[in-house]
């Protein structure tokens, strides 16, 4: 715990991103520190998913800097595939590989990218599946799982690469209401274990209980950043006040 805790793991500085004429991100800056849980909230179209997806370069930014562990991810000299191996990503639509069993979904990347032995990868996968509560489904195909189960597998798949940071892009938005809880439970446990997390979500309860900092975005800008108490109990920006009135 020397300077590691002070150095941000993610540095986002003056980032601009355009979709055609539309500025999806306008001069966005944000630092995330190791072990920190940052939850990004905001109305749809506010740029929160775009910001999250820019962090592992699924979206290419037009200007500004995004650095992971002090490595500029948009510099062609740096191997983005290596960088991405340390950034777990969970999608709204799960995006499990349907042609692979649950177990293979988890073992594929560690074996092929980290050069892990098959047996070690399978042991790791089983351990992760048990952790997310679906150890008994290792040998079925994703199509046989419910949405909540698929999303838990997706989280386990990302964890199998032993990432330093997890990015969640509205992980519960595509789920039936009764399945939201099981996915959030997994995320809360992950947070307790000290994982660094950046999470875009509409689950305000989750934001309040897990987040170290809540970021409010609207119109491609970060309008307010604060602790859950500051954001939810004493919102300053009128847009945030209006937003909270609508969602709470």
């Amino acid at each position: 715990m020397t300077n590691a805790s002070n150095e941000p793991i993610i540095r986002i500085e003056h980032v601009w991103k355009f979709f055609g004429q539309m500025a999806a991100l306008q001069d966005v800056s944000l630092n995330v520190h190791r072990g920190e849980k940052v939850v990004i909230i905001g109305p749809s179209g506010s740029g929160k998913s775009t910001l999250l997806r820019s962090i592992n370069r699924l979206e290419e930014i037009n200007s500004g800097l995004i650095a992971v562990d002090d490595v500029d991810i948009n510099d062609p000299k740096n191997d983005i595939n290596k960088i991405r191996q340390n950034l777990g990503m969970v999608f709204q639509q799960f995006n499990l590989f349907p042609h692979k069993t649950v177990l293979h979904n988890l073992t594929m990347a560690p074996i092929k990218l980290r050069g892990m032995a098959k047996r070690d990868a399978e042991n790791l996968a089983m351990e992760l599946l048990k952790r997310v509560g679906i150890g008994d489904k290792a040998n079925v195909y994703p199509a046989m799982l419910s949405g909540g189960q698929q999303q838990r597998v997706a989280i386990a798949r990302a964890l199998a690469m032993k990432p330093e940071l997890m990015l969640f892009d509205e992980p519960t938005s595509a789920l039936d209401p009764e399945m939201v809880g099981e996915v959030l439970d997994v995320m809360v446990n992950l947070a307790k274990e000290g994982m660094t997390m950046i999470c875009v979500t509409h689950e305000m309860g989750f934001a309040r209980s897990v987040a170290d900092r809540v970021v409010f975005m609207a119109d491609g800008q970060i309008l307010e950043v604060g602790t859950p108490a500051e954001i939810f109990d004493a919102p300053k920006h009128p847009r945030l006040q209006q937003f909270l009135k609508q969602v709470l």
Partner: protein
Amino acid sequence: MNEENQNNMPAGVVAAEGKIEVPAGGIKLSEERKDSVINAWTLALVGAVASLTILCTVWPDPYLDVLAFLPGGLVITFQVTILSILCAIPLGLITGLGRLSKNRVINLIASTYVEVIRGIPLLVQIFYIYYALAKFLQVSGLTSAVIAISFCYGAYMGEVFRAGIMAVNKGQTEAARSLGFNKVQTMMYVILPQALRTIVPPVGNECIAMLKDTSLVSVMAMPDLMQFGRSYAAKTYLYFETYTIIALIYLIITLLLSKGVSILEGRLNYYDKRK
């Protein structure tokens, strides 16, 4: 293509069971239709085999004589078909990937190839390679036949591969890339295996069409099934008898192949089956 089947994300929850898809390629038996005893495929096969048997047993002269004369031609027909398939499928894959490439030059080359080949009849291509290009380069009948057919079908298959790859949900690419797979690994491990499901039925049908189109090589005196028939008919003046047998043989072969394609297709759907 059957887009419903491609949408593989929540499709797990809302499985497409009981839904009768209109197949893209045509010759295909869905699960539902397989249950009924009589279907078009069975009817055609039983009819063709019965006709052939009756003709050859009731009137062995001339029908059995015609039949006995043809196996030599079948060898060439299969040889040309198999060699052309082996060349056309990789060519189709490369073309399809080329058409999807963001690299302008590669894309332009692949697209131009498809446009040019699609615009020229296969028969003309065969004549062109065998007769016209002979001015510069003498190639054997077999070589020209395989080149002409595989170039022609490579272009068609390129479009099939392109469509199949495009039909795979974009989220699959994003998921693979976010794990750290590079573009080639993503294509090999994630996209192509899934695209195969869409690709196999139409490619299978292209292969069957290819077998039929090999009959065109008889124009350059390749001794295939069709050419054997032509020479037999010319010798004996038994046009009706000869071409009846030829037609039945082509029909039986293509029916069996189309069955093979639909079996393969069923196998490829393994990961959709629930329980």
